[in-house]
Each structure stands twice: as structure tokens, then as C-alpha cells.
């Protein structure tokens, strides 16, 4: 879908060395991780990341035997100032879009990048655009 980017999700057991193994595979494949989060649920967790080459990352990790999936998420530019997150969250809330999960990181510029997994991508894109919030596409992710 136009306006979304691909997020890579991995199933991983909650035990020492698992993240290192994943990071090592991506490092060897020269894939750069742009944003990253771990959600854990007791004995296992889901590692989520936005990378500069999602398709290659997917194939690489799958080839290593990991349970991997690709999910369409939205990446938005956020001003790295107080109220930056409020503006986006408020826009989506008022637009009736629910955020399932989100994670953010700060770029080298004055901007922050917010990765959003929402219940309705099309609706989210529309309300964000209407509020003049910048969405980030794949090319921009590569060039950060």
C-alpha cells in the first residue's frame, strides 16, 4: 500500500543470545536496522524492526530458520520537540484510528521517526495527510 512501509517481525525465544544471533545475521548481510523494538510475553517475544532492505532481510532471516513475517506499518516524521507525539496521536485518535503498537527513534536531523501499527492503514494515512503530517516512505528510510 502506498504510504506504508514494511516492518520485519521475528519470533524469538526469551533467552540469552537470541538477539545477538539475529543481529549477527543482519550484520553479515550488511542490512542496516533503522528502528527496532522487542515485545515480550513470558517465554517468547516478537522482535520488530524497520530495515533499509526489508525484502532481503526477510529472505535472509527465513533462510536462517527464523519464523519471520512482514507487516505493513506507517512511518511518520515527528518533530523532536515537546508535543510532537501528541500532535500525531491526537490526530489519529480524533480520526478514530487505533494504534496497536508504536516505537520511535531520533534521526540525525531534528526530526524523530515514529513507526505505527494501526488497525486501519488507509484511514490513518488519510487523517495524517489531512493534518499535514509527513509520512516517510521506503526511500526515505534507506536515506536516513
Amino acid at each position, binding site marked *: 500500500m502506498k504510504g506504508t512501509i514494511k516492518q520485519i517481525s521475528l519470533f524469538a525465544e526469551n533467552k540469552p543470545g537470541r538477539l545477538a544471533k539475529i543481529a549477527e545475521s543482519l550484520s553479515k548481510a550488511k542490512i542496516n536496522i533503522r528502528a527496532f523494538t522487542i515485545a515480550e510475553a513470558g517465554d517468547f517475544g516478537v522482535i520488530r524492526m524497520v530495515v533499509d532492505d526489508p525484502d532481503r532481510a526477510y529472505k535472509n532471516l527465513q533462510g536462517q530458520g527464523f519464523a519471520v513475517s512482514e*507487516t505493513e506499518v506507517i512511518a511518520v516524521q515527528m518533530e523532536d520537540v515537546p508535543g510532537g507525539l501528541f500532535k500525531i496521536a491526537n490526530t489519529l485518535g480524533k480520526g478514530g484510528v487505533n494504534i496497536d503498537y508504536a516505537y520511535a527513534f531520533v534521526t540525525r536531523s531534528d526530526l524523530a521517526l515514529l513507526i505505527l501499527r494501526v488497525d486501519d492503514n488507509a484511514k490513518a494515512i488519510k487523517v495524517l495527510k489531512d493534518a499535514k503530517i509527513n509520512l516517510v516512505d521506503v526511500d526515505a528510510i534507506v536515506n536516513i
Partner: protein
Amino acid sequence: MEYWQPEIETMPRKQLQELQLKRLKKSVNAVYKNVPLYRKRFDDAGLKPADVRSLDDLKKLPFTKKSDLRDTYPFGMFAVPLQQCNRLHASSGTSGKSTVVGYTKKDLETWADLMARCFYMVGVRPGDVFQNAANYGLFTGGLGIHAGAERLGCVAVPAGTGSTQKQIEMIRDFGVRVMHCTPSYALYIAETCKKMGIEPGTLPLRIGLFGAEPWSANTRVQLEKSFGIKAYDSYGLSEMMGPGVAFECTEQDGLHIWEDAFIVEVLDKNGEQCAPGEKGELVLTTLLKEALPLIRYRTGDITMIMKDECPCGRTSVRLNKFYGRADDMLIIRGLNVFPSQIEHILMDMPEVGEYFQVVLERVNHMDEMTVRVEMSDKAFSGELGDLQKVTGKVTKKLKDSLNLRTKVVLVEKGSLPRVEGKSKKVIDMRTAI
């Protein structure tokens, strides 16, 4: 010495063997006439029922295995029309299909009598309040034990399983003198008593009947001491009818197996009869069953026949303690589970791979089973909630099929060891009870 059925329990061996032969001929005739699987096997071996002229001729007859019951599911081994049955019981089978057993009215009476014989043997008397903390479903330990207690004239309390605190209150308030449950549950009850501020020794219990799982001499001492009871071992299997097949007497030295109802063989790996005192697989032939007579049924249980006569005066042979299994069957909280059952359940679920590992532990005297399964990459959506749904679904399927609560842990694809043989898929860390 007092007996429930003195003429049978103390019958001289020669006379007992004559009775066995008479009844064996009847069982053999019944299966040949009414069970196609037996007729075929007899015919293939060139045998006719008339070829059974002595007890020694039993050796010529084909064996029966658990898989025969499964392959002829549900009623293929029954020797009477279903309409002549009065009750069905079933245990979960090794590959999804359960093992179904049937009883005629007379079978139920025989069973109740054998049970009453066991209870009377260890000092249970009419009027005793008898609490049965066994599962009252398809499992034979519920209704089977219950019927025996009623037959003897006890006040039967069908407590079922669970609600330990309530079980303890009933024992105390109803004046329960006899209790039946698994030995591990009895240990758990003792511990729960202490937590409730009740000294187990102050309960009215005098006799404990423990079965469905193997237990040690140490546990006997522990249970007898903490409750102030005499503890007795019970053996049975649903294919033979349920509990009541063999039982300890007050000598507490081996289990009397009722030879007027079963012919006992203990066989080595080559199918040769073991001498008394030698370990082998227990193989039983039913002599009184109408609905489901079984010839040379391989129980899978390893035991030995004891050499000497019992001072209690009963003439039936005694089986020594059970030493384990000839196959990979597991006994978990008193229930029989084959690793292949778990495999079969998982195979039907695309969310998980076919590889699994069972880890058995004992927590607070009770068995805990963890099933580790590999997450299938095809079914992985990337959402945490979906993973929890998978865990929940596997847990429910296992519960529905095995009647056991398990903890299911998802692991990464390829992380479980690839081993030959199902038993290696089980890590049993339980110490003996």
C-alpha cells in the same frame, strides 16, 4: 482371617486351575464365535476353540494388543451386541481414537464384586464412609471404585477430583474412614491439611487405597505416618475392566491378582514364560468378561510373580511391585499418556510444527507437564496476540484430548533436538513418588 468370597479366595490351586480352564474355554469360544478379529487370527494359526484342552494350550493362542482395540474402534472387539451392554468407558487413545471398553450387566456385577473383594481384604467393612477422589468420567477409577464400595455396603462419597480443601472438610465432617486417590494426590492432601492448620493425623481416615501410578515404599511410610493410616496399592487397567484386577492384602507384600477372573502370564521379550521372581511383561486373559473378553492381552506393565504362598491364606498368586513399562507410556497424574498422542494432536495444527518435547516435573507432589512446540513460520503473523492464541489453542486441544492441564511453550523452529524414537521426546525429571 475374613474374606469377601472365601470359597474363591482360598480355593486350592488345583481346583482354581480347573475353574480357570473351564472359564478359558468359554472365553475362547465366545471370541471365536463373535469377534471377527479373533476368528481370523485363530484361523490363520490353524486353531479351533476345541484345541484348548489344558491351561498349557493358552501358549498357542495369539496375543491381543492395545492397537487391536484402536484398530477396531469403537466396538469391533465386543463379543456381544452393543444393546446388551450396560455401560461404556473409554480412555484416550494413542492416535486420536480412544480405547472403548464395554460392560454387560453381569460384567458390572463381577467388577463390583472383585472391587469389594479388594476392599474387604484390607479391612474395609459395611458402614464405613468411603471417599473416592477419582475422576468420575470415562475414567474407570471413578464409577468402578464407587460400585465396589457400594457393593460392600459402604457409604460411598463420590468426591471426584479437585477442590482439595473441600475434600479435606468432607473427610473431617463426614467421618471418612477409607479414601481412594492417587498416591501423589494423597501427599498433596496432607500438605494442604497443614496449610489449613489441620494435622492430617487427626482426620478420621484409617485406610488409604492408592493406585493409577507407581509409588515407592518410602511414600507408603510417609502416607501412613502423616494420616495415621494403612496404605494399600491398587492395580488395574480399563481393558481388563478397570481397578480391582490386583490389590495388596494386609501383608502389604505384593498384589493378589484374582485368578478366577484372569489368567496371569509374565513373559520375557521373546514371549517365553518367566519363572517366578523373574521380571517380564504382564499378559492377562479374561475369564469372566462377557462384553469384551480379551485373550492374552499385553498390558505393557513390567512385573514379576512372587514365589511364596501368602500368609493371608489367599491362594491366588501375587504380583510384585510394578517396575515400569514395556513401551513409552507415561503416567501423568494417574492418567496414561503416550507421546504419540501428543504428536497426533500437534500434527493436526498448522500453527505448530511436528516437533515437540515433553518436560515432566513434580511440583508440590503433583505432576506438571510442559509441552514445548516449535512455532511454524507459515503461521507466524508477527502479532504477539496471535502467538498467545496459538499457545491457548494448543493447551485447549491437549486438555480436550488428554484430559490433562499442560503448560505449552512455543519455541523457535529448529531449536528442539531431532531424535529417533518417541520416548526421547520426553524429559522426565520427576523423582519417584
